[in-house]
C-alpha cells in the first residue's frame, strides 16, 4: 500500500480507478425512464354522484317517470370508490314551491315510478345518497287538437349553460320554461341565433329567477320572425333548468327540444329515426366566424357523405339548414358534422301519414359512463327503438331493462361495428306492464358510442314519434386525480 502511494503514478491510478467506479455506479443506477414525476400521480377515478335535482315541466295530467338504475357491469374507468355514509338516501318527487308531503318517495333501485300527475306546477325530483343517480322523463301524448302529437323529454337538471336548436317562432310556437330549484336567486340570459344572425331585442333578454320560481317565456316575443333558431341560456349566480317546447304550426306536431351538446368542432347528431318524411339538418355557428361544415350520414351501411350535399355554409352567428331526406335512405342513423369553428347541430324529423308529428333531436356527447332512458313503452301500437352509432371504433354496450315492477332483466351485450349504426327494437313484453327503463352501459375498451331512443305510436291518428338523444347517466362522475402539493402556488 505504501509503495503504491509512494509511486508517482500510483495515487493517480488509484484515483482514476475510483472515478471510473463512480462513473460506473452512476451509469448503472440511472433510471431507464422517468419513474417519478407526473407519471407517478394516480389516474382519474370514477365515483358515484352525491345529489341530483331534476325539474319536469308541469304535467297537467301527463305522465312522469322516474327511475334510479342499478349499477350494471363493471365501472368503466378505475375502480369505484366506496361511498362514505352520507345520511338519508332516497328520491323525493315534489311540486315546486309546495311544502308538505312530497308526491312520492322512492327508496329502491331499479324500480320505475311512472305516474300521471295532475298538478299544474313543475315537479322537482331530488335524489341524494345512494339513490342520487336518478333519471326522469316526461311524456305527453295528445291525439287531437293543436297539440296533437307525441312529445317526450328528459327532465332537465339545473346547469349553467343550455343549448337548444330547433324550429323558430315563425314555424312553431316555442315556449321556453326556466326553473330555479336552488336556494339562491339566479339570473338567466337568453341568447337567440336565427337564420339571419343573432337576434338582439330592445331589452336584454335577462330574467331573474327567485328560488323555486318558474317562468314560461314565449320566444316569439323577442324573435318573432325566425324560422329556425338556436337558443343559449346562460345562468349566473346559480343554475337554471331550461326546457323548450315547440308546437309546430299547421298541426304538424309537437316535441320538446332536447339539450344540444355545447359548441364543438365535431358534432354527432344521433337517433335520427328511419322511415320517410323530411329530415332537416340545422347547424348553428355561434361566435364571430362563418364556417363551412362537412356533413356525413352514419347508417348501417356506413359513414357516407350525401352526394351534392357534402358541405354546408353557415354564416357567423346564424343557423343554416339542409334537407337530408334522401341522404339517410329510410334507415335510422346519425349525422356527423365536422367544422372549423365550434357549431351546434340538430335534426328536425317529420313523421309520415295524413296527420304528421315532428321529432327533434340534437347533437349529443358519447355515453362514456352509461345512459338511462326512463320511459319506454311497448304496449299496443307503441314501440321503442334504440339507435346506437359508433362513428370511430367498434362499440360494445350492455343493455338492461328495468320494469315498473319486478326485477330488472339480465344485461344483454350489443355490438356496434365501427362506423355503423345499429337499430335495436326494445323488447315487447306481452302481458308485462310496459313502461320500463333501459340502461345502456358501455363496456371497457369500447369505442365512443352515440345513440338516441325513438318512441313511436302508430295509432289511428297516424304516426306519432319523439326522439330523445342518449345523455350521460347521472350515477357516476369522473374525478380527476388530485394530489396536494405546495408547488401549486407557482406556475
Amino acid at each position, binding site marked *: 500500500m505504501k509503495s503504491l502511494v509512494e509511486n508517482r503514478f500510483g495515487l493517480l491510478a488509484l484515483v482514476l480507478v*475510483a472515478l471510473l467506479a463512480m462513473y460506473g455506479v452512476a451509469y448503472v443506477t440511472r433510471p431507464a425512464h422517468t419513474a417519478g414525476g407526473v407519471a407517478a400521480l394516480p389516474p382519474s377515478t370514477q365515483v358515484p354522484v*352525491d345529489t341530483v335535482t331534476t325539474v319536469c315541466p308541469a304535467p297537467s295530467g301527463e305522465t312522469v317517470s322516474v327511475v334510479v338504475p342499478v349499477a350494471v357491469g363493471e365501472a368503466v374507468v378505475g375502480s369505484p370508490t366506496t361511498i362514505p355514509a352520507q345520511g338519508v338516501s332516497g328520491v323525493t318527487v315534489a311540486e315546486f314551491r309546495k311544502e308538505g308531503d312530497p308526491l312520492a318517495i322512492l327508496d329502491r333501485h331499479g324500480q320505475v315510478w311512472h305516474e300521471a300527475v295532475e298538478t299544474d306546477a313543475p315537479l322537482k325530483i331530488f335524489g341524494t345518497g345512494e339513490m342520487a343517480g336518478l333519471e326522469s322523463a316526461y311524456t305527453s301524448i295528445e291525439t287531437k287538437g293543436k297539440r296533437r302529437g307525441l312529445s317526450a323529454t328528459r327532465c332537465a337538471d339545473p346547469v349553467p349553460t343550455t343549448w337548444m336548436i330547433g324550429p323558430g317562432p315563425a314555424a312553431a310556437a316555442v315556449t321556453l320554461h326556466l326553473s330555479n330549484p336552488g336556494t339562491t336567486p339566479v339570473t338567466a340570459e337568453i341568447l337567440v341565433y336565427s337564420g339571419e344572425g343573432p337576434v338582439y331585442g330592445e331589452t336584454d333578454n335577462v330574467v331573474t329567477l327567485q328560488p323555486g320560481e318558474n317562468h314560461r317565456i314565449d320566444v316569439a316575443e323577442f324573435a318573432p320572425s325566425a324560422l329556425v333558431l338556436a337558443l343559449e341560456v346562460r345562468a349566473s349566480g346559480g343554475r337554471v333548468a331550461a326546457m323548450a317546447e315547440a308546437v309546430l304550426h299547421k298541426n304538424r306536431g309537437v316535441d320538446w327540444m332536447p339539450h344540444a351538446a355545447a359548441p364543438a368542432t365535431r358534432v354527432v347528431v344521433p337517433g335520427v329515426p328511419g322511415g320517410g318524411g323530411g329530415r332537416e339538418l340545422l347547424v348553428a355557428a355561434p361566435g364571430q366566424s362563418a364556417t363551412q361544415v362537412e356533413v356525413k350520414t352514419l347508417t348501417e351501411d356506413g359513414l357516407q357523405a350525401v352526394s351534392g350535399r357534402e358541405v354546408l355554409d353557415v354564416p357567423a352567428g346564424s343557423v343554416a339548414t339542409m334537407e337530408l331526406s334522401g341522404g339517410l335512405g329510410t334507415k335510422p342513423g346519425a349525422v356527423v358534422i365536422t367544422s372549423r369553428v365550434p357549431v351546434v347541430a340538430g335534426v328536425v324529423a317529420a313523421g309520415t301519414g295524413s296527420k304528421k308529428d315532428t321529432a327533434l333531436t340534437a347533437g349529443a356527447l358519447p355515453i362514456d359512463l352509461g345512459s338511462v332512458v326512463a320511459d319506454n313503452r311497448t304496449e299496443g301500437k307503441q314501440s321503442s327503438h334504440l339507435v346506437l352509432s359508433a362513428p370511430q371504433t367498434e362499440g360494445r354496450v350492455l343493455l338492461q331493462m328495468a320494469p315498473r315492477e319486478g326485477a330488472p332483466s339480465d344485461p344483454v351485450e350489443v355490438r356496434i361495428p365501427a362506423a355503423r349504426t345499429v337499430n335495436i327494437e326494445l323488447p315487447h313484453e306481452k302481458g308485462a306492464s310496459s313502461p320500463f327503463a333501459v340502461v345502456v352501459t358501455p363496456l371497457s375498451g369500447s369505442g365512443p358510442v352515440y345513440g338516441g331512443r325513438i318512441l313511436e305510436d302508430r295509432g289511428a291518428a297516424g304516426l306519432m314519434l319523439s326522439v330523445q338523444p342518449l345523455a350521460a347517466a347521472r350515477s357516476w362522475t369522473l374525478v380527476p386525480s388530485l394530489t396536494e402539493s405546495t408547488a401549486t402556488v407557482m406556475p
Partner: protein
Amino acid sequence: MSSTVFSSSSPARSIFGITPGSAPRLLVTAIVVAHDGARWLGDTLRALSAQSRAVDRVIGIDNGSRDGSGTLLAEAFGPASVLTYPRSTGFGSAVAQALRKLPAATAGQEWIWLLHDDCAPDQHALRELLRAASDEPGAAVLGPKLRDHLDRGLLLEAGVTVNRTGRRDTGLEPREYDQGQHDGLRDVLSVSTAGMLVRRDVWDEIGGFDPGLPLFRDDLDFCWRVRNAGHRVITVTDAVAWHAEASARRRRPPAASDHHPRRLDRRNAMFVVVVNLPFLAMLRALVRNSLGSVVRTAVFLLAKQPASALDEISALGSVLLHPMRIRRGRRRRRAGRKEHYPEVKHLLTPPGAGWRRFADMVQAFVSGEGPVDSPGRHHAGAVRAVTGEEPGEELLADSGVFRRTFASAGVLLTFLLVAVTLIAARHLLGGGALGGGALVPVVGSAADLWRVYIEDHHDIGLGTDAWAPPYIAVVAGVAALFFGEVQTAVAVLLVGCVPLAGVSAYLATRALVPSRYARFWLAATYALLPVGTGAVAAGRLGTAVVLILLPVYVGLGPALLARDRRRSRRAAWGFGLALAVGTAFVPLVYALVAVLCVLAAVAFGGVRPAVGEAVSIVLIVPAVLLLPWLIDLVEQPGRFLLEVGLHRADLVAPRLPAESLVGLSPGGPGLPPWWVTAGLIASALAALLMRRQRMIVAIGWGVTLFGLLVAILVSRVNVVGLNGGVPAPAWPGVPLALAAMGMLMLAALTSHRITELRRAGKLRKIAAFLTVVVAYSTPLLAAGYWMVKGVTGPLRSDMPAPLPPVVTSEAAPGDRVLMIRPAQGSAALTYTVLPGRAPLLGELDVPVPGRGEHDRFLWAASGLLAGRGDHDMATLAAFGVRFVVLAAPIDPATVRVLDAQPTLVRKTLGADAAVWRSLLQPHPPPARPDDGGGPHRWWLWGQGALLVVALVLAAPGARGERESLVPGSEAPHAAAADAGPPPLRAAGRRRRAGRAKAIRR
C-alpha cells in the same frame, strides 16, 4: 561655564564653543525641554551645536527626568543654563516658567526656538527659519518641516490644521515620503512645538501656551490665538528637523497628566476647537463633536475596545460638563476671534478630507492592511512591520486610491464577480418580487418573518402547530441589515451568492493558502461552479446560502486542529454556529460535515487531544439549536435530502447522466455544459503527479470522492416534497460543491509548484503555462457561458402574485383559499390551501400533519372538481375555505364543473386564474386560546440564550491594549525590520497587534 544665561549683556558660551550669532538685531534663544528623553537628547544637542547660524542663548529644561537627561543637558549647556522642574510639569508651563525668568532682549528682536528632546534640527534649520522670518512681514510663528527621526525620508508634518471636531490633520498621505512635493513657504493654522520659532514679544502678548492644555493641542491653541491677534503662522519647508514623536507614540508614558493620553488628547482637541471658534460656528462644532464622539464610542464598543470607548465618552463629558471652563477660555480669547475667522476658516481642514480619510481607512481595511489613520502622525511606522517589503520599495509604489484598491487581489476578485453576476442577471434587474423555481415570490417584511417564526400556530394549509423552519429567522436577521426589506435580502443572498461565495472562499482560506494568486483562482472557480449558477437559476435559496458558508467550514476545519486549546475551542463554537445556519437551509450539509469531522477526529485524535472536544462541540451545537425542527425532519427521512423551498420535478433532471455527475454538474435549468469543469478536474488530477505533499492531495481527493458518492446517492433517490407533491429525485448540488471544494483546495495548496516549475527548464515552463491555462479555463468558460446565456431558468423578477387581487382584497382574516392547478404535462390536478394572502417565505416549509383531516379534505375537493353533488362545498366551508382559485393552464371543462356548483359564484375568469367565491359562510377553525407560551415560548427563549452564548464563545477576545503599552521598550517596527520576513502565524499576530495599535490613537 559660569556664565549665566540670564544676563543679556554677556553672550552665552557653551562647552562647544559656539560663537554668538551674526546679526545683532535678531537674538535667538533656544529652549530644549527634556523629559526622560536621554535616547534622543544626544542627537538633539549635537544638532543644536552644529547649526550654521548658532543660537545666541540656550536654556535647558529638565522636567524631572529619571534617565539622566538632566545630566546631559547640564553637560552641554552648563548647570546654570538648566532649569529643573517637577515631573508633572507640562511642556507649555515649563517653557512659560523659564521665559518668565528670562528677561526680554532690549535691543533687536528676540526669537525663541522651542525644541523637544527628541527633535534634532538640520544644520541649516535655524538659518532658513530666520531668513523666512525676515522675508515675511507679520510672521510671528515659524515651523520647520518635520521628518521621522528613524526613517529619515518619511515626512511627518509640514504645518498642521484641524477640522471642526478637533482632529489634527497634516494634509499628508499616510507614510508619505518627502520628495519635495510639499515644499514652499505657506501660511498654516499651526505648527508643532517641535522646532517652533516664536517672536518673544508675540509670546508675551499672547501669553504663551495655555496651562490648561498640558500635553496635546497646546501648540494648536497657541497658534490659533496668534492668528486671532493678527499675526501669521508660517511653515518653512527649507528648514528640516527630525522628530521621533516619542510622547505621541507612547514610547514613553506621559507623566504630565494622570489621565489616559487618549482621553486627554480628545478632550483637548474638542476644547481648543470650541473656545477658538466664533459663537455660531462653535455651536455647530459642539453638536458635531458630540455626535461624533457618541458614534466613535459605539464603534469602539463594537470593536471590543472598551477602554478607548471610555476615553472617548469621558473626554466628551469632561468638555460638556465644565461649561465655566469653556466660558472662561472663550472670554480670554475673545479678541480678534471673529475678525480673523474667515482666514482661519480657510486654513481649516477642507470638508472633503473627512471622506477621503474614511475612504482610505476602508480601502486599507479591505486590502488587509489594517485601518490606517492618515493624520500622518502616529501610525505610519507601526504598519510597516507587516508588509515585509524591501526598504525603498514603497517609494516606487504610487499611493493613489485606484491603484491601492485594485492592487489587492481580493478586491479585484469581488469586482469581477459582481460584474459577471450583474451581466448574467441583467434580466432580473429592476423588477419586482423575485420568485420562481423553488422560491415562492417574496413578500412581507422582516417583522412578518419574525412573527411567523415566533408564533406557535401557523395559519398555513389547514392550520398546524409544527415548528417554523429556523432559516426564516436567519433571513429575517439578514433583512435587518437591509432595513427590514426581505426582498432585497433574498435577492442579495440568492443572486449575489456568486460574488459572496467568491469572497467567502477568498477570505476563509487565507490561513490555509498563503498565495494570493492561488486563492484568486480558487475563489473564482468556486464561485462560478455549475452548482452556483444552477442554484441561482432555479431559485434555490438554501444551496445559495450553503455555497457561501462552505468555505467557512473548510477554513475553520483546520483551526479545530490547532495546538492552542482555547483557539481550537473558539473555532469549534464558530464552526458550530456556521454549521447550524447551514443546516437550517440544507440539512444534508450536517451529515456531510459530521462524517468528515468524525473521520478527522479519528485520524488526528491521537496527535491533538483537543480535537475530540472540538468535534463534539461542532456537532452538538447545531443539533441543540435546531432541535425541534430536526425532530420534525427525522419523521420524514426523505426530507433530509431536500433543501428549503419548493421541491418540484421540473427543477431536477430525472435521469441525470453519469458524466454530468462526474463533471460536477447537478442537472436542472441554467447550467453550462458538463465539460466546463474539465479544467478543474484536470488540475486536480495533475496534482496527483507531485511527489511531495501527498497527504494533502490524498485527503483532498478523499473528500472529493466522498462528495461524489453522496451526490450519486442523492440524485438517484426519489423524494416527495414537504406536504405532498410529485415525487422527484433530490438535487445533488451541495455534495457536488463539497467535491469541487476538495479539488480546489488540493490544487490551490499544491500550486506553488507551478512557480517552481517556471524557474526550471523550457519544457517545464511550457508545462507550467499549460497548467495555468487549463486551470483558468474552468472559471473563464463558466463565466462566459453564464454571461452570454444569462440566468436561464424559472427565476424571474416580474413574478405575479400567486393569488389574484380579487381574492386578496376580499378575503377576511381566517378565510382560506383552495388553489388548484393542473400538473405539468398531464390531466392530473394539484391543490394547496392558502390563508387568503400570498404565502410568506418559509410558510410553505412548515409541515402540516394530520392525515385524517387531509383525507377528508381531499375527498371533498375531488368531489367538488367532479361535480359530484352539492355537499362538497359545505365540507370545504367547514374547513374555512371561502375561495376556489383555478390557476393556469385553465381547462374549460373544469370551469364548467365549478360553474355548476350551486354554492359557488364565479368572480373572474382570466387567462391566469379563475376565481369562485363560496356563498356559504366558512366556519373558521376555532381560534386557539393564546396561552401565551407554554413549551414553545420557553424553547424560543432558550434558543436565543444558547445563540448568544455561542456567539460570545466564538467571538475573538478583545486584543489587549496591555500588549503594546510597554514603557521604554524598543520600537516595534524596528524589531520587526530586524527580524526579517516573519512566519505566517506570527505575522498574523503582529498584524493584529499593529492594527490594534492603529485603531487607538
